[in-house]
């Protein structure tokens, strides 16, 4: 069977062969097979595939190996009061005792993953998560309101780290989730699935900071039922190649989503923020603000898409903004804010800017006696901070991280 799957990938590279081998060692499971097939149809996505043009995984991941110099970032997101789930290349652990309102089901078999062809690296995570004795999918059911935050940490040196988590937030429940991607593994692929039922609320904070050698694909699939409210804030520093992708579907009336992100890329760091929002029900709201700042040798990629289907997408209210600063020559920012609209009574706006800091603002600061370096740092921080405002209790932590990076 794995021979047949191997044939699916044209000219597989060493990394793809390794992924096929890893899949071959896992217990047989029809849904796992289905997920792996979805990945194998195209293999590691590359620049010739629309949607991966600026983030070529096949080129960036010739082999899967432990990085010689893995990232050493400490996790800045506090875990003391949170329920911690820790994923490493050798497996995962979580707190023995859970508060009432949170139930964890570790399923030995993989769960079905819909639309997997559209998310090849999410499908890969679904296919390779778990192991012979370890559960393939971690399912978490949330029923309470006053719950501690769930914190997912992805770290530890090794070749590869695969994880899959499904979170179901029952009607009216409230949840805060945070994730830290700290690198260590040569390749990390995760799939986080969120299902918010009627009136449920969820805030998700993603922090990503790895070394220059790591390749990461963190995929989130989010589904919102009637009146659900989902708020997401991401702070990414990039790696050799990192992609934080969110696919969100408004599936019932009146759902609301906020998808904010900031990326800060230094030399040798590539951060890709990709989102696709499907307005599959009338009168849903999406607000999206992405900010980026990039230094010489860094690359920021932003791809956003609103998809508004015929009839059901009526009265969509969606706004997408991406603003990037190229702080030095040699920085690169690539953006694609996309709209696909089949309903006529909608408001979809998008805006995209990239360039240097506003000269007028700089002048204002300078004439107030602020040194150029400081003025630049202040303005950049203010610029980035706007995208972190929805992060709730974690906003300050993220701001401190952003400020420290800018002060370097």
């Amino acid at each position, binding site marked *: 069977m794995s021979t047949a799957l191997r044939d699916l990938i044209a000219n597989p590279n060493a990394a793809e062969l390794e992924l096929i081998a890893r899949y071959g060692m896992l217990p047989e499971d029809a849904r796992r097979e289905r997920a792996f097939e979805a990945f194998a149809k195209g293999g590691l996505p590359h620049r010739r595939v*629309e949607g991966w043009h*600026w983030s070529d995984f096949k080129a960036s991941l010739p082999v899967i190996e432990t990085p010689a110099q893995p990232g050493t970032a400490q996790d800045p997101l506090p875990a003391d009061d949170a329920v911690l789930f820790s994923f490493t290349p050798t497996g995962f652990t979580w707190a023995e005792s859970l508060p009432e309102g949170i139930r964890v089901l570790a399923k030995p078999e993989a769960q079905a993953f819909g639309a997997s062809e559209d998310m090849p690296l999410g499908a890969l995570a679904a296919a390779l998560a778990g192991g012979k004795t370890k559960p393939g999918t971690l399912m978490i059911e949330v029923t309470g309101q006053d719950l501690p935050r769930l914190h997912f940490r992805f770290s530890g040196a090794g070749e590869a780290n695969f994880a899959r988590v499904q979170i179901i937030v029952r009607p009216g429940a409230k949840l805060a989730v945070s994730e830290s991607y700290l690198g260590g593994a040569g390749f990390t692929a995760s799939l986080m699935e969120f299902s918010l039922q009627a009136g449920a609320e969820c805030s998700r904070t993603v922090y990503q900071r790895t070394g220059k050698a790591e390749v990461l694909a963190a995929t989130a699939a989010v589904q919102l039922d009637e009146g659900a409210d989902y708020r997401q804030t991401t702070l990414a520093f990039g790696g050799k190649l990192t992609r934080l992708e969110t696919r969100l579907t408004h599936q019932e009336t009146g759902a609301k989503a906020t998808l904010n992100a900031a990326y800060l890329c230094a030399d040798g760091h590539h951060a890709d923020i990709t989102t696709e929002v499907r307005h599959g029900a009338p009168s849903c709201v999406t607000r999206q603000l992405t900010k980026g700042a990039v230094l010489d040798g860094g690359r920021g990629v932003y791809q956003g898409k609103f998809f508004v*289907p*015929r*009839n*059901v997408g*009526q009265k969509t209210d969606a706004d997408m*903004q991406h603003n*990037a600063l*190229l*702080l*030095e*020559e*040699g*920085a*690169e*920012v*690539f*953006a*694609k*804010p*996309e*709209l*696909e*609209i*089949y*309903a*006529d*009574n*909608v*408001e*979809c*706006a*998008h*805006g*995209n*800017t*990239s*360039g*240097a800091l506003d000269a007028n603002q700089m002048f204002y600061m300078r004439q107030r006696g602020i040194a150029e370096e400081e003025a630049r740092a202040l303005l950049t921080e203010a610029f980035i901070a706007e995208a972190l405002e929805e992060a709730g209790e974690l906003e300050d932590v993220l701001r401190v991280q952003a400020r420290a990076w800018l002060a370097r």
Partner: protein
Amino acid sequence: MDCCGGTDEHEDDCTEVTVKEGIDAKTVEAAKALESENYSAGFSTAIDMEFSPKGLSEDTIRFISAKKEEPEWLLDWRLAAYRRWLTMEEPTWAKVRYEPIDYQAYYYYAAPKSGAKYESIDDVPKEILETYEKLGIPLREAEVLLGVEGAAETAAAAREAPRVAVDAVFDSVSVATTFRKELEKAGVIFMSISEAVREHPELVKKYLGTVVPQSDNFFATLNSAVFSDGTFVYVPKGVRCPMELSTYFRMNAENTGQFERTLIVCDEGAYVSYLEGCTAPMRDENQLHAAVVELVALDDAEIKYSTVQNWWPGDEDGKGGIYNFVTKRGDCRGARSKISWTQVETGSAVTWKYPSCILRGDDSVGEFYSIAVTNGRQQADTGTKMIHLGKRTKSRIISKGISAGKSDNTYRGLVSINKRAEKARNFTQCDSLLIGGRCGAHTVPYVENRRADAQLEHEATTTKLSEDQLFYARQRGLGEEQAVALLVNGFVREVLQELPMEFAVEAQKLLEVSLEGSVG
């Protein structure tokens, strides 16, 4: 809101269209006027034609080359392109769907039997002259001078009336080129590309394929192999072309494809304004139009290229219509050169077209102004590429897409700032409007910035374009949307009004188009 309430994208058959409140009634009317039942250029001309053997092979290419009495180098060039084409795959990334094209089902050369180029306008077959007259394109210089409709009644009015030199391309051949003599006096070369190959081989050889190389893309490579006729323009150093130049493309014969090739070279400090019009008869089968247009602007030169594209769009059920798969690219090769594309797109069943500018010269400027209206089952995937290579290069993109009926209208554009493009600037604004709930409007902008000192703005930052104007309008009590609509409309209107009247019939109808109710 949909009268059928169905969810299937392509199966609902209701005829009544409910238009969202707030959409300008004149816009709806303007779009309605462009529905296929109102297509006035859909007649065909009965005339004896000579065809190449049906289908595509090296023999077809040799046939075309021999018909045109081409030199050996050009035949070799065509054959090299053909061999390359055989190894290429048809692109599928555009948001358009059509039945696979059988490239062997077309005639790649069709010309009136009585010969291609005529010594004098009096030798041009009556049927052809009538065809162009019916389309409102005068081929007799005297008529042009007086205006076809006898509009210029006084001598003064005649002097005022703008004159347009026309190259008329009928299927695969150019049948007439007007005002050649007068243009020659100014040093401007204006002739069909077949003639240019014979009369100015050095110029053609120097520039042909330098902007759109043979291997550029599937359709451009096909064109390089089989191109039949098109226009060649050369404006020498320092000359401001004394009149508007234009080519009117008419597809007439059944089962033919039209593969014209246009090459316009503006030497240092020269200026030319060029217009292109296209129509075709209503036919039930799909016809292929795969043209290549290359523009070269040297130091301080300016080329203004305008298109009114009104190929037969197919009937309301999507039967027939032209596949318009065109590669248009301008090369601002010289410093301070400028190329501007203006297009009014109302026709074709499927459009795949991205008129682009390569801003190579320092301080060069690229502009793209587009209005695309789709109706019935039309699909348009169109936009532009602005490739900033030189220092302080500037580009501006204004695109409006209006979808009605069951059509799909996509803006797809690339703005790319190269590492060396110091202080490059781009402004992009694309608006879409949906009329009724069974069509689609899409925007796919790609923005690649590799310069910290570049300034790129897309869409919602409209206010930056004319903050002062907007402020002025706002303080006079206009709402923000109203003010933006007014300003952008005024802007587009200005562009369209520069189109000469003969070519602007369709464009004029669109002047009523409004931004209100725009979806983003």
